[in-house]
């Protein structure tokens, strides 16, 4: 029941974020979206994912969005009504129907016989503590069984940071002489 309420709130918040014209408010609403998402992950016992969603989705992303908006402006550009396309609701409805049809073929939530629970999960559950010596199974998978992937992710974060530094940071020499004292 709680999940259903949270999912409905999620849809409402998503609509609010899309329809808002003030982009700073839309960013804040997206933070609420992430926080709701984190609650849902917690309800599904995916605490590590919830942790990431709350800190990255609701925290850092919002701050970076607002920091970007301070350069681009708070208001969304006005939309042209005559250019609104009539077939979009139909496409949306068809997409929703296709997605719902897709879920019909999926195993039940928490089904022990689901393919995902029969492949490598039993090995992780039964032996990860012996093989990796850490008690948090998620950490065991991320750091040990899938250690290469986590190394790749860390490299991606480092590369992204390096790219932003190269693009946005100005060198002191290249700067023209300031005409007035900056704050």
């Amino acid at each position: 029941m709680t999940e259903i309420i949270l999912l409905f709130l999620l849809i409402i918040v998503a609509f609010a974020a899309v329809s808002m014209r003030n982009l700073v408010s839309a960013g804040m609403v997206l933070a609420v979206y992430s926080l709701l998402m984190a609650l849902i992950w917690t309800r599904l016992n995916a605490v590590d994912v919830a942790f990431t969603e709350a800190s990255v989705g609701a925290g850092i992303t919002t701050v970076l969005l607002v920091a970007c908006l301070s350069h681009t402006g708070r208001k969304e550009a006005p939309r042209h009504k005559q250019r609104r396309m009539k077939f979009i609701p139909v496409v949306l409805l068809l997409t929703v129907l296709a997605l719902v049809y897709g879920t019909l073929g999926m195993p039940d939530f928490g089904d022990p016989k689901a393919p995902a629970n029969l492949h490598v999960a039993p090995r992780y559950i039964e032996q990860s503590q012996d093989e990796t010596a850490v008690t948090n199974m998620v950490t065991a998978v991320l750091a040990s069984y899938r250690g290469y992937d986590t190394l790749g992710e860390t490299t991606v974060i480092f590369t992204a940071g390096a790219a932003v530094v190269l693009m946005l940071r100005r060198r002191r020499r290249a700067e023209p002489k300031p005409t007035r004292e900056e704050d």
Partner: protein
Amino acid sequence: MHNVTIEAVARVLIPFIQLFGLYVIVHGDSGPGGGFQGGVILGASFILHAIVFGAKAGRKRVSQKVSDILSSTGVLIYGGVGVAAMIAGGMYLEYAALSPGHAHAASHYGIFAIEVGVGITVAAVMATLFFLFAARGRSDV
């Protein structure tokens, strides 16, 4: 922009946020969280400091040089653990090979080391991103 309330609250909160971030990083092997989440929290504490006290004051705590070096240090720690495992005779990132005879402890400490590496990189990159976005076009941050 000075606001006494916000500054006073931030001054008290930031150490606890940082402590929590460090706790999440080093506690990742036995509880929820890990290097990534802890690193984000640690980076967020620097961002909060920069929001409240200004980017310039924030850069006094974490200078450009320090954050640049830290963001590469974390990846190097991660990769270094892998190379160390190879030197010790195992495969790349085979933590158990780090100390033959103590496979269990070696695996635990190997995972601990890479979590710390991830945390350092993530915290430094998050802080750098904010500094660059918040003060775009200025050379001092």
